């Protein structure tokens, strides 16, 4: 099926845009796990561009997870004749749905990755960007499955890497350089976040959900509207767009909770993998102690950073929560997965939130 990619570049190379490429029509696999991303036909790849099939929708959730300043291009595709249903206020996608998320970095003239803001492009120019990985979340009859594909250096194909992969990135910016190992998650690690009810819950999307899609994106249109207009969703959910943690006009408490929810809530919820710690960061806490205020660590080990409490109001420097966000040591850092470098903008937000929080903890 990578013949398709190949044919496309042949035509582009020979006749430029006169003939153009025939648009890819995505293919759904109920049981096979193709070794090559091209077999899914989700993208039109030439030597110059990486363009999602026009049959997919490019989307962006209201709150995006930090992944080492990588840019992300997300697509959603539902096969002809299938439709997602609203069930208990959440989108229940039909079998055949394929979600993709491609991670890439802008590059300088030498081809080295550079840090730039991600404005949510709907295609990737390969002369000024480098593709790293494409993760698929595929809705099969028996539920969602995750597949990590890793791009080769030639940018001609991405291969299924069930066990994940790692690659050295030297990311440059005007302010500072980041030299780190970028990790592609293995399939179990995909489940580590996408199974929020541990351990017997099902895998499910975290970004393409009703609340996160209620925000507007391309064409300044609510992404939910785009789904309904296409006939991909049977009705409008009754949710409002969540506060974005990046929205500086919003209340600091709501911004901080939005940030913690998207980065921590998939494990730190009452039935999540991190419920063993009794720290709840998905907004479900009844007592402030359950959100970490004056909460003692349970099994944090060195991750406690020789501190007594997760959050000490007014005192970010004595708060384990911030300490773990500021760490890039694998046994201390939080989130455990999804980043190798620290997220300064997130740290600044949580630092300010704790500093402005009223109250104190016993010494």
């Amino acid at each position, binding site marked *: 099926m990578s013949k398709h990619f190949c044919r496309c570049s042949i035509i582009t*190379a020979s006749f430029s845009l006169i003939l153009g490429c025939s648009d890819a029509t995505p293919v759904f696999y109920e049981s096979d796990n193709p070794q*090559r991303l091209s077999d899914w036909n989700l993208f039109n790849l030439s030597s110059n561009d990486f363009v999602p099939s026009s049959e997919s929708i490019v989307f962006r959730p209201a709150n995006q997870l930090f992944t080492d300043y990588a840019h992300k291009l997300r697509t959603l595709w539902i096969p002809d004749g299938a439709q997602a249903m609203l069930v208990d206020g959440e989108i229940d996608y039909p079998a055949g749905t394929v979600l993709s998320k491609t991670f890439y970095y802008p590059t300088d003239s030498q081809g080295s990755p550079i840090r730039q803001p991600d404005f949510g492009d709907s295609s990737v120019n390969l002369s000024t960007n480098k593709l790293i990985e494409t993760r698929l979340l595929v809705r099969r009859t028996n539920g969602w499955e995750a597949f990590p594909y890793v791009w080769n250096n030639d940018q001609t194909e991405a291969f299924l890497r069930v066990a994940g992969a*790692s690659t050295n990135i030297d990311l440059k910016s005007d302010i500072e350089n980041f030299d780190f190992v970028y990790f592609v998650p293995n399939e179990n690690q995909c489940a580590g976040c996408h199974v929020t009810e541990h351990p017997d819950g099902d895998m499910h999307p975290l970004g393409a959900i009703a609340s996160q899609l209620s925000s507007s994106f391309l064409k300044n249109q609510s992404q939910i509207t785009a789904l309904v207009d296409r006939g991909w969703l049977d009705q409008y959910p009754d949710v409002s767009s969540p506060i974005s943690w990046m929205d500086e006009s919003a209340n600091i408490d709501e911004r901080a909770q939005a940030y913690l929810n998207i980065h921590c809530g998939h494990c730190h919820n009452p039935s999540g993998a991190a419920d063993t710690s009794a720290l709840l960061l998905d907004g479900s806490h009844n007592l402030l102690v359950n959100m970490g205020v004056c909460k003692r660590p349970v099994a944090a080990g*060195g991750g406690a950073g020789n501190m007594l409490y997760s959050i000490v109001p007014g005192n970010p420097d004595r708060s384990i929560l911030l300490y773990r966000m500021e760490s890039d040591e694998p046994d201390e850092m939080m989130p455990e997965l999804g980043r190798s470098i620290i997220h300064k903008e997130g740290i600044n937000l949580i630092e300010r939130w704790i500093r402005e929080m009223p109250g104190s903890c016993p010494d």
Partner: protein
Amino acid sequence: MNKVIFKIAALSSIAGLLATCSEQQPAAPGLSFEESLQQQLIEAQPGDVIEIPAGTHEMTRSLSLNVPGVTIRGTGIDSSVLSFANQIQGAEGLLVNADDFVIEDLAIEDTVGDALKINESHNVAVRNVRTEWTGGALTTNGAYGIYPVQSSNILIDGAVAIGASDAGIYVGQSNQIIVRNSRAEYNVAGIEIENSTFADVYDNVATNNTGGILVFDLPGLPVQGGRNTRVFNNEIINNNTGNFAPEGNIVGTVPAGSGLMILANDSIEVFGNTFTDNNSANILILSYYITERPFEDENYDPFPEAINIHNNEFNGGGTEPDSEPLVALQANTGQPIPDVVWDGTMLSGKQANEILCMRQNGEISFVNLDAGNGFAAPNFDTADHNCELPALSEISLSTGAE
């Protein structure tokens, strides 16, 4: 650039060859031992045995298993080694979320965090597995060696746990547990049973830890009401290593020289053990209040109850206590700390013989610290504790793994 080459290849194929592109298909990458092991763990089917060959295998990322019914088997506790000395990702060595799990005959060394974490798994057997930090007792070592949590029907047999900066063998928030024939040394806590129910801990050796064996019940956790643990036929010797836990963690409060510490747990039967030279005290029975940590948990019972200590042997110990009240006591009496130390606190209305009974322990010394009254009047009389409590039942695992 390769892109140019690709373009040329494409043009040449247009120029008449009309060849399929398969000849130019990019090659798939090869896998390292580590990657193929992780791939095996992901693609395993129930009933599979995944073998770890002899040798030291370098791991750089956490391994994980989510498939039930899988056995991971090495060639021996010292011969098949997964070494995480160069680990750069993941908070544990091997993370298991899978029922009907067996791991045997291998070692996990030098993980950055916990060595073997088994979360929410049922029917688990860990046999002849060693978890070790090879640099000795260091604060920078990972927290737990063998670490089942929120799990049930757990057998840990023939394990060796060395160097954990929290607990070598730690079973938390679990039930139906057997830990036996194992050796824990140079950990902060050798063997710890925490917020768990129905455990048998026997025929183990706990030595050179800060605390040999700990049976704890803590507030604020999703699983509470720790009770019904039998600690028997263990050798609990010379657990005098200075506490090297990172601050903030509860085990950081364990005094060096603690043989067996029971904290706020109920229905504990302690018999047939040999306690030797644990220099704070051979046995400490404490309420959570002794930690001086506040808690807001209405359902939490901070007091130990129904502790039954019989037919044990005590040799030495208590000569160098590592806790303020015990140091003060030693200064007052000029004697070593007694074998059994109880802080003396209990719910009002309770009788001393509902908290602690001791009999047939040979020459045993005892103190009630009177902690509730600022340690004002320590009491060395065992008369209130010359009583019997019913024996607890043997644990039998539903798996029959024992």
